């Protein structure tokens, strides 16, 4: 790719200990906008030493994957699905930090929006309904999980293939083109605000959708300098997450209002729900849950079986744990 450095790469074995020394001129190219804002606002950014960070305003599965393939990005922040699809499409990646909501079932990212006039009280009511389904997106995986949890097969409902771009799902529900569609974040709020009066509702799935990871292309972890720089960055990132927890208003203003253009209320709401995340120092449960997701997608969408443990660089687990302990 175009972003490759001219300096020779110091190779690092997958099982070798993470080095501490970072060669001069090492650059980390990171697509983690909330971390960028948190570091800048808290002043933690001044602790970056021995390497440089180039921030990219990139987040989400498809964009980060494209940037990885192009060799233009070293790490990004996504939910649990993109690393799976990356592997299935022959782009080796490694997860090097994870976080989750301390109270996931009460603060789900997605709920199932129900069109006005449609009776869906719990997951069992999904039977026979028209459900918006986007195969490659997190929303699609959620639908499959919901069906699984309700004990329904794909044939028991009518899956309407519909990509969730912009407010497509809100409109599809509002105009009753589908009965049920997963809605997240501000889309859910705006749906309920718009169509609540007409009888539009939503139900919670009781399914965890709070997994969030930092991941990067596998090459990055074979480059001793980058791996070392990442090690330092992870330490800072843990501090930054902690700072966010301690300064929610400051962060909401800096990130949601100034960076993302939302209102402060929206920002605070998001911070309380989907952005309310704790860094995890022990990954076993997390990995197990992701394995379930992978297995479900394999069976329902016909992807090859995947052992998700191969996706993790667990050397960083210790780094995170140390950082958590130290803070």
């Amino acid at each position, binding site marked *: 790719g175009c972003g490759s450095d001219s300096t020779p790469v110091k190779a690092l074995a997958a099982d070798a200990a993470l080095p501490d020394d970072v060669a001069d001129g090492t650059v980390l190219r990171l697509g983690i906008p909330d971390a960028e804002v948190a570091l800048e606002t808290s002043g933690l950014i001044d602790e970056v030493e021995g390497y440089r960070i180039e921030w990219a305003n990139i987040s989400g599965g498809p964009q980060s994957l494209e940037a990885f393939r192009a060799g233009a990005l070293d790490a990004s922040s996504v939910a649990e699905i993109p690393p799976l*699809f*990356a592997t299935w*499409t022959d782009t080796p990646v490694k997860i090097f930090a994870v976080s989750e909501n301390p109270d996931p079932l009460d603060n789900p990212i997605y709920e199932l929006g129900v069109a006005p006039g449609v009776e869906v009280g719990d997951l069992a009511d999904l039977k026979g309904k028209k459900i918006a389904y986007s195969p490659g*997106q997190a929303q699609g995986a959620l639908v499959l999980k919901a069906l699984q949890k309700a004990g329904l097969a794909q044939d028991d409902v009518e899956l*309407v*293939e519909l990509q969730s771009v912009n407010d497509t799902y809100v409109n599809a529900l509002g105009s009753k083109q589908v009965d049920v569609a997963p809605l997240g974040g501000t889309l859910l709020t705006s749906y309920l605000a718009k169509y609540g009066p007409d009888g539009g509702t939503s139900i919670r799935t009781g399914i965890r959708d709070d997994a969030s990871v930092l991941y990067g292309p596998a090459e990055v972890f074979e480059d001793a300098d980058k791996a070392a720089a990442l090690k330092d960055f992870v330490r800072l990132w843990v501090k930054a997450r902690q700072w966010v927890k301690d300064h929610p208003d400051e962060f909401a203003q800096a990130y949601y209002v100034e960076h993302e253009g939302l209102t402060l209320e929206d920002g605070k709401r998001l911070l309380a729900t989907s952005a309310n995340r704790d860094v995890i120092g022990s990954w076993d449960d997390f990995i197990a849950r992701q394995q379930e997701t992978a297995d479900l997608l394999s069976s329902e969408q016909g992807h090859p079986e995947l052992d998700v443990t191969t996706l993790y660089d667990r050397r960083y687990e210790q780094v995170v744990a140390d950082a958590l302990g130290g803070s």
Partner: protein
Amino acid sequence: MTASVISRPTAELTPVTVPDRRVLRRRLGPGRRIPFALWLGPLLLVALWFLASWTGVLDPRTLSEPWVVVSTAGDLIESGRLQEALRVSAVRAFAGLGLGIAVGLVLALVSGLSRVGEALIDGPVQVKRAIPSLALMPLLILWLGIGEEMKIITIAIGVAIPIYIHTHNGLRGIDGRYVELAETADLSRSRFVRHVVLPGATPGFLLGLRFAVTTSLLSLVVVEQINATSGIGHLITLASSYGQTEIIVVGLVVYALLGLIADGTVRLIERKALSWRRTLGSR
């Protein structure tokens, strides 16, 4: 020294050699058409792709190897998915194309021949053109649902725009002397349209048609993201959401082929329909 005398060898078959020495000037036009030239460039591209993949210069993760694409295409054809997708998409594309051409032509005539019509139609068309179509999809879903009508009408709207603009432009560019002729020949408005405006605007219309067929193909990718179970656009969307690069590339190759065939067809029509023209290109 630009006018030089050269000799053209005459056919061997003629028993008595008939001399044919002409004055040949420096040719400033492009000369005779090379048949199937349209395909030369793309074939070269394919050859390059082959070479780059073969030598490993091109990473298969960047762009699948041609042979992989061929075998993937083979699989898709064997399973019948590709044919089915093409069939379904063809129906949508042609319906949208037909509707869009009709609407675009009528709008162009109304707006081209009356300043009031122009004042009412032209601005909104430019506005529609300037607005990202992705941003319009939610509105179209609200108004037209997610069924087949929505898909066809969306394609038709996309098609009508280039037809309108090019026909309007072609029409407005008709030599004023022919309009004078029509006025003195007391042509009725409908005859004026049939005998002067439409033939005079044909070059413009045909250029618009070249854009229209491509638009109808490209619109498939957008509309078939919504509640489609088959179609070439759906095939690509699905493959890209699963990251099935080879299938995406098969889809793109099909698009390239369809685009070339459609463009070639319109240009063939162009050559036939505009055979009366004596231009830089036709000499």
